[in-house]
C-alpha cells in the first residue's frame, strides 16, 4: 500500500528545450513568467517567441508566488488514473500579482472553503525527481 502511494500516476508534462528553464526553476522552487525585451509583453506558459512581436529576446521575471483565485471548480468525477483516487480536488485559475492567470490545484484547504478572490500563495510539490508542480494554498 505504502509502495503504491509513492508511485506518482498522474500525467506528467513533456519537458523539452523550449520550456526546460521554466521547469528547472520550479525544481529550485522558483516561479517565473516571461517578458519580451522588445515590446514588454508578458506571457505564460513559456515559449520561445513573443506572441505580440515575434521577438525571441526574452527576460525571465521571477514571481512573488502570490495571487488570488480567479475561478475554480471542485471536481467530483474524473476517471483518469491518479485523479480518480484523489477526488474531490480543486482545480483553479490563480491570477498572480504579476497579472498572469495560471491553471493549478488548490491544496491545504477544504474544497468548501475555496472562494473566488481568496488570496493564495505558491507551494511547490516535487512529484518526481524531474518534475515540480506549482500549486497554491490559502495565503498565510
Amino acid at each position, binding site marked *: 500500500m505504502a509502495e503504491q502511494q509513492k508511485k506518482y500516476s*498522474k500525467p506528467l508534462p513533456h519537458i523539452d528545450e523550449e520550456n526546460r528553464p521554466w521547469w528547472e526553476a520550479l525544481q529550485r522552487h522558483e516561479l517565473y513568467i516571461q517578458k519580451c525585451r522588445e515590446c514588454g509583453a*508578458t506571457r505564460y506558459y513559456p515559449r520561445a517567441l513573443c506572441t505580440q512581436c515575434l521577438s525571441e529576446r526574452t527576460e525571465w521575471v521571477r514571481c512573488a508566488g502570490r495571487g488570488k483565485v480567479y475561478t*475554480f471548480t*471542485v471536481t*467530483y468525477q474524473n476517471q483518469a488514473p491518479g*485523479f480518480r483516487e484523489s477526488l474531490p480536488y480543486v*482545480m483553479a*485559475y490563480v491570477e498572480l500579482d504579476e497579472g498572469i*492567470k495560471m491553471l493549478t490545484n488548490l491544496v491545504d484547504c477544504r474544497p468548501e472553503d475555496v472562494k*473566488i478572490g481568496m488570496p493564495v500563495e505558491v507551494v511547490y510539490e516535487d512529484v518526481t525527481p524531474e518534475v515540480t508542480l506549482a500549486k497554491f494554498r490559502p495565503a498565510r
Partner: protein
Amino acid sequence: MSLSRKAAVAGAYEHPTRFAPDKSMFQIMAESIRGALADAGLTIKDVDGLCTTGIGMSGMGIVGFCDYMNLTPNFVDSTSIGGSSFVAHTAHAAAAIAAGLCSVCVVVYGSTAASSRFAIGTGGAGGGGDPCDQYEIPFGPTTVGSYAMVAQRHMHEYGTTSEQLAEIAVTMRLHASMNPVAKYREPITVGDVLASRIISSPLHLLDCCIISDGGGALVITSAERARDLRKKPVYVLGTGETVRHVADGHRDFLEIAPAQSGRLAFERAGVTHKDIDLAMIYDSFTITVLATLENLGFCKRGEGGAFVQGGRLRFDGELPCNTDGGGLSSNHPGMRGIFLVIEAARQLRGECGPRQVRDCNVALVHGTGGTLGTRHSGATLILSNQ
C-alpha cells in the same frame, strides 16, 4: 464578395440511432449521407465535395472515408475544431460552392461514443501533446471542469444562479419530449437538476450533455440548383468562425468565441438580433448556452441568467432555442454541431410537428468546440428560408 444566399442547405438528415453497437462509425456516416441525399432528391453520383472532421489517429480519416464510400471529390475539408466543426464545414462548403470549387458538397458526421463507452466529459483531458497541454494535464482538467470554471466565474461576477442554469436544462428536456428520437424524453424540473449530483462544481449531472451514438449529414449546393430540388432551400446568409484560448495568461474567460464569430455572421448576413426566429446553440453544458447567448449579443454580458428564465428559450417563447432537445436531452455523440444545422433546416422548412416554431424564417446556429475554460472554437451560421 458576399456569400449571402449563394449557397443553400438542400438536404438534411439526422440518423435516428442513439445506441448502435452493431454499427461502425463509417456505416452511420454512410447511412446519414444516404438519408440526406434522399431528402434533397440527389444521388451519390452528384456529390463532388466532402466535409467531415479529422477522424482517427492520423487525423486524415476523411481519406479513409472516401475510400470506404468510393468517392473521389473535387473538394475536401476535414477542419477539425471540435463540436463546432460541422457548422464551420457548412460555411466552408457554401464558400467552396460560391467559388466554383464543387457543386454538391456533403457534410457528414457519425460516432459510436455511447456503445464504445467513451467517457466524453470526465475521462480526463486526453491528447496532451501540445505545448499548452503541459501546463494543464498535471492538474486534472476535464471537459466538465473547464466549463465549470466559466460558470463559477459568471456566478461570482454577476450573481448567476444554479436555478437559472437549470432552467436551460429543463427547457431542452421539454423540447426533447416532443422529439420522438430524443434519448431522454421524460420532463424534468429545476429541482431535479439541482438534486442531481455535482460532477464538477457548480455543474450538476443534469447541467451536462448526455452521451449517445449518432450521426447526420447535410447536402449543400448552389442557391440556384437548390431551388430545383425536392425541398425548400435553406439559404446560407452569413458565417463566422474563430478561436479563444488562454491568451498568454491574460484572458477574460467570460469573453468567448461567439463574440467575434457572431458579430461577423450578423454583419455578413445583414440581419439583426430581432430578425432571429430560432437559435440553435451548442449545449454541451447549461453554461455554454448562457455564455453563448450573451456573447452573441442577445442580451448584455451578465444578464444571461435572467434572460434564460421565464420560458424565453421555449419553442413557443421569445427566442426558441434547441428545439430538438439539444445535447442536454436528445443526443450528444461527442461533437454535435451538425445537429444544430439539421434542426435549423427542418424548422425553417416547417417540418417539426409539435415542436415547430411559428413563423420560423431566420435561424442562427452557433457551435462550440473544445473547452470554454481553456481553448475553444466557435462557428456561427445565419440561415433563412427566404
